[in-house]
């Protein structure tokens, strides 16, 4: 499961899971933070998971054709 881990100089650690489902992503993130803690890197996390991928909205193109004023 592909993911990106972003570490800021202020100590924030963000995990972006790019594959799977929200549920498998949650499990992978929980496992990831637990394994980091076992390596003596304790990440405080409130347990919240956000989803940044949304159903693509259908894009419709509206074409407005106007009769141009004809000049003679």
């Amino acid at each position, binding site marked *: 499961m592909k993911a*990106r881990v972003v570490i800021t100089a202020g100590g924030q650690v963000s*995990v*972006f899971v790019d594959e799977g489902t929200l549920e498998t992503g949650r499990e992978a993130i929980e496992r*990831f933070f637990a394994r980091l803690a076992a390596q003596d890197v304790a*990440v405080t996390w409130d347990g919240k998971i956000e989803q940044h*991928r949304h159903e693509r909205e259908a894009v419709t193109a509206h074409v407005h054709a106007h009769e141009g004023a004809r000049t003679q």
Partner: protein
Amino acid sequence: MPCDAIAVAKGQVPLDLAHELDGLGSEAVAQALLALLRQRFAHLGQPELTPLWGAHSGARASGIGVRIGNVLIHVSPNWRVTVNTRRRAGAGDDQTVSLVRDAVTGLLTGLAGLAIQQRVAQAVPQAGYRVTDQTRAPNGALVLSVEL
């Protein structure tokens, strides 16, 4: 950073500057301090490490001591920064002392930030994950591509 992720979590490693700087060691910090002073304050002269002595006790003070021009910098073992003039302050020395103090404090904060990034980055493969790429974002964040 463009984000189209399925699941996103944001955590925080407790930030303990002293702990991170302890991990780097005083020699590495001293060398970084000298490099900073050479780069940013070359007009003041050549920076040099110098022993420091307690003003009241007369005993040798621990920590890092650096002198550059009329400025004396002391970084204590618990990473407190003190900057003073070595002799009577001349015109503009107040501003110089202030600029040097801000620069040294900024350096220590930056070094601690780099140290915490490296510590987390090293823990990822140690935790059994394969890191396929490592880049740095424009804001300085370390970005690891990982197989979870």
